[in-house]
């Protein structure tokens, strides 16, 4: 394991100021190094033309067949794909690893848009549980409501639901932004580690329970706070960022962000930096 504290030579990324964190934990991994970028091949990516557009009716397809056909269309250079009749099918649009305009004319079931990295997606309907789980980058917009575990473990990108969402929104998220136009259920931000969640409406019980880090902004009423979730001061910088984000997200552009509540981790539960996983187990 590299001891990054004692490394004298900075990587290109650090020299550019991309990573300013002081990494102290013994379990920290080395970041991706752009110096070695040319050696990487990102499997399953294609050069697509956004002006090349096609429709795909998935009414009589299984999820696997539909996803395979989306992949096939991307390999042919189609950069804008409109999916007709998704009819609540599970696992549609998963594993897309490049830029793509994807539009669903209808609702998705569980695990829609899971493990994606880069696409811009608009879902003109509702989504079921675990939408966009593990999203790395890109933008996913849901026009109606969403189920539970919305944006579970996302690492990056923007995930926007214009309606209301179920429980455990942003559970275990490690980056990115989740924006909800309506209300959210219990355990929102449960064990989140980084990133930001914005809820314009009310939120259920145990908000931010056991969160390690990250920030939650709430516009409405809070059912109750979870363990170690605490209020923090809403700064001018926060308000500016919220306004920009809501405008870009096409949601709540005129919302009065000055009255939002800001919730962060109290960081009183554990000292994660100084404990190895086995030691944490002992501490419990």
């Amino acid at each position, binding site marked *: 394991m590299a001891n990054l504290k004692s490394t004298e030579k900075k990587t290109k990324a650090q020299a550019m100021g991309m990573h300013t964190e002081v990494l102290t934990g013994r379990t920290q991994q080395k970041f991706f190094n752009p110096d070695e970028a040319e050696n990487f091949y990102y499997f399953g990516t294609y050069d697509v033309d956004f002006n090349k557009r096609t429709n795909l009716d998935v009414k009589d397809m299984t999820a696997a067949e539909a996803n395979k056909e989306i992949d096939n269309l991307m390999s042919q250079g189609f950069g804008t794909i409109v999916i007709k009749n998704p009819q609540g099918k599970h696992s549609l649009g998963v594993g897309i690893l490049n830029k793509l305009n994807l539009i669903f004319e209808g609702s998705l*079931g*569980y695990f829609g848009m899971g493990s994606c990295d880069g696409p811009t997606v608009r879902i003109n*309907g*509702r989504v*079921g549980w675990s939408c966009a789980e593990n999203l790395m980058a890109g933008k996913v917009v849901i026009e*109606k*409501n969403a189920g539970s575990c919305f944006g579970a473990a996302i690492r990056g990108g923007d995930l926007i639901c214009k309606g209301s969402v179920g429980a*455990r929104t942003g559970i275990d998220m490690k980056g990115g932004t989740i924006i909800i136009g309506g209300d959210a*259920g219990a*355990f929102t931000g449960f064990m989140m580690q980084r990133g930001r969640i914005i809820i314009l409406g009310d939120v259920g019980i145990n908000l931010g329970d056991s969160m390690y880090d990250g920030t939650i902004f709430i516009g409405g009423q809070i059912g109750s706070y979870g363990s170690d979730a605490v209020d923090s001061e809403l700064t001018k910088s926060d308000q500016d960022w919220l306004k920009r984000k809501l405008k870009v997200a096409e949601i709540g552009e005129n919302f009065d962000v000055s009255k939002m509540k800001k919730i962060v981790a109290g960081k009183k539960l554990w000292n994660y930096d100084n404990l190895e996983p086995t030691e944490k187990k002992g501490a419990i």
Partner: protein
Amino acid sequence: MCGIAGLIHRGKSSKVGHELQGMLQALKHRGEDSTGYALYGDTDGKNFIMRFKVGENVGEGSTSISEDVSVYDERKKIVDNYLLELGAKIIKQDRILPYSLRYEIEYNKKDLLEFSQKIEGIPGVEILSMGKSLEVIKDLGNAKMVCDRYNLDKVVGTHAIGHARMATESGVDIKSAHPFWGYPFSDVSVVHNGQLTNYWNNRRALENKGMRFMSECDSELIAVYLAEKMRDGASLEEGMKESLSGLDGVFTYFVATKDSLGMAKDTMAAKPLVLYESDDLVAMGSEEIAIRSILPQEIDTYDPFDGEVKVWQI
């Protein structure tokens, strides 16, 4: 895992057997050890319909002990004699399968406790449902298999709830299959998705109060729990609200009565439920694809929140 589905038509009847079959078949990936239907059919409301079994389906996958059909015949004879003793008159009887029967009976007493205790006192006999509208049909296999076996496709009624079961905590048999009748209340049925962690504590307390359990399936507790609350004078909705704190664990359940359908979700919202509500129809299921099987057009659905209880009337 299990899947549940339910629907209620407001102000009209429909082919609820066919509709529920479609909804449950869409959920078959959540479990097809057994499937059960609680159908509230159109009847004249004069006589009771008793669905009961005199044995188990011992087909492939069953955890039940094989018995000869002659044993079923003997049990049926005893049931017939006991009905006479109770003052019940059999108007019509159908033996749908060697172990599964449907009786239409004239019985004028309101309290079904004595009636049920006597019939179920016969070893191997269980009343699956008793009501003037309710019929519980449950057996091994997926929704289509059970629907075909019992010819449920043409049942017309106002509302229905059903369950596709993946057996986890009790056997693959009819007695552990859902829905459960809210014994001894006429026309009450329950389906459940989840796990109840204070099952034995509640069961012991309820048994001490005179309630009966037929299986070791934790879901049966919900039916018995609500029945006991209603016996003590609570309304269905009050009983359901009390269950949110009285039952421990993760659960989403539906309960139906002669003229209503309700849902309850635990305070952690750990089990899924998608709901569609309009002026003339409420449809709900563990997954949206269940609702899509009867409403393929684009519709607005939502997930009820944690600790939510809702009841609809026909």
